[in-house]
């Protein structure tokens, strides 16, 4: 007994977690430091790699469309997150109230979770095709529109298209999180409010939403962070950024500099800018997660 307890619990914990910590340091912090180092180097695959101070950052910030790209990124992620959030709350409310069939419907609506984002982009791009896709055709058949709907013709509708394709894949996660939050609310609260004469609209705004707000908040922040940095859907749906580069976001801007322009120094600077932005969102997420009840 004493032999097994020769080291304290906390020392045991430290020893047990060290291999994993080393793994993280090697796998995450090394490339993280490396990309920051690269961002201060001139690395354009044409001339020798030398230290260049803040040149790369200057190049990024003075790009004529840098601010537009940031704005588009915010529009895209806010649009996708907003659409996801509203749909998830509606779906979770329905699932929560269902007496029968809840499990079946839940399985059906979470299925997109298993679809790779890149495939989601392909499928939606085709469904939105003005001539060969079903959406435009159905709108005409039901008389909503007289002529074919070509979302790729206008910047705003192109953006809506990629937002739908992105949100479609993200709704399942937030629905599950929201549903779990709703189910965690005690039934007694609703019984008590019924005695007080509250109707279901009151219940939703004064009991359901406030009590479930924290998990929903954390889930929404995760979704916002993911949409902000993920461009799979944009890449497969509107290659090159679509009309007027309306879906050309920070991630696309970064990938272009790695894959097409081959200016690795500038790409590293864009990476750091992207890390900075996601960290701003992430800080809110970490604060919400680690905050004591």
């Amino acid at each position, binding site marked *: 007994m004493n032999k097994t307890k020769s080291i304290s619990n906390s020392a045991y914990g430290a*020893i*047990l977690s060290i291999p994993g910590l080393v793994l993280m340091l090697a796998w995450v912090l090394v490339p993280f430091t*490396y*990309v920051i180092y690269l961002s201060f180097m001139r690395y354009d695959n044409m001339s020798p790699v030398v230290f260049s101070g803040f040149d790369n950052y200057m190049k990024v910030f003075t790009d004529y469309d840098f601010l537009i790209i940031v704005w588009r990124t915010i529009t895209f992620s806010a649009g996708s997150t907003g659409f996801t959030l509203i749909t998830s709350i509606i779906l979770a409310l329905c699932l929560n109230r269902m007496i029968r069939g809840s499990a079946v419907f839940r399985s059906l609506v979470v299925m997109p979770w298993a679809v790779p984002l890149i495939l989601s982009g392909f499928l939606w791009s085709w469904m939105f095709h003005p001539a060969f896709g079903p959406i435009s055709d159905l709108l005409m058949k039901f008389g909503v529109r007289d002529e074919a709907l070509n979302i790729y013709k206008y910047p705003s509708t192109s953006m809506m298209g990629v937002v739908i394709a992105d949100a479609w894949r993200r709704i399942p996660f937030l629905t599950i999180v929201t549903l*779990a939050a709703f189910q965690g609310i005690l039934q007694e609260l609703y019984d008590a409010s019924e005695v007080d004469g509250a109707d279901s*609209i009151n219940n939703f705004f004064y009991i359901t939403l406030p009590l479930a707000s924290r998990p929903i908040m954390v889930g929404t922040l995760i979704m916002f962070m993911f949409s902000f940095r993920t461009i799979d859907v944009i*890449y497969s749906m509107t290659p090159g950024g679509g009309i007027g580069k309306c879906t050309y976001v920070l991630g696309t801007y970064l990938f272009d500099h790695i894959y097409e322009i081959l200016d690795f120094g500038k790409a590293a600077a864009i*990476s750091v800018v992207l890390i900075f932005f996601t960290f701003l969102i992430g800080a809110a997420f*970490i604060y919400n997660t680690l905050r004591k009840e």
Partner: protein
Amino acid sequence: MRGVLLNIIDHKATPYVIMVAFAMFMLSPFIWMTLSAFKTHQETFLSPPTYFPEKPTLEAFSNAWFEAPIPTYLKNSLLTCIISTLIVIVAGAFTAFALSQFPYKGSNMVLGLFLFTRTIPPMAMLLPYYLILMKMNLLNTRTGIVLYLIYLNYPLVVWLLKGFFDSFPKDLIESAIVDGCSRTGTIFRIVVPVTATGIGAIAVVAFMWAWNEFFAPFLFLHYDELKPITVGLYYFVGDEVTYWNRMSAAGIFAVVPSLIFFLAAQKYIVKGMTAGAVKQ
């Protein structure tokens, strides 16, 4: 006015009606993909489009499977995803267990560090990984992809596992130690058997995450025989024409493995996600 609205909201059928409408939206890409996979190449380019294949054919499936390298892509995806998931789960389980059950001075900081690394966008790590793998001569290898997938999943898995172990009853461990079991012994004799399904669910999440990855293999691999299925979908996108029916067939092959894993583990994933990602 409010009364009418309430009557509608409170009606028993309302959740079902709304649900059916949204389920149509959520399922429409699946339906379109499945129907199109049975069409001929010509039929996918009819305008207005047909909904049900005029002459259902398995041509697209056989083309995707026998002429396009879909089986190779699937094998690559399965191989890299399973190996990286196993490594991440085994390494992550010990760390997460220690952080959850035997906290030490500074363990909160370690936890914060894991959370912080979760916020680093994978896109921003593409370039350093590309250059590091190039220096290690690991570009165009599956090993390189596995190394990247470990990065991608590790912080998330540790965090999910930690949340999961937090709900593990401490009494069980303590009583085992009193009975003379060593702390390391409790991990293998008690914790792992009891939590196997939960750990399995988190493994499924990590697997799906890896399965979904597109940009890293797109950038790191140039040979068809190494590419995973996500990159492989580009096989059907040509400069002039896209083979939608074959891509749909390939898409079904791409979705089915992770969908099976996912639906089988769904109940536990829901528990794991909500315990790890949301609640404390």
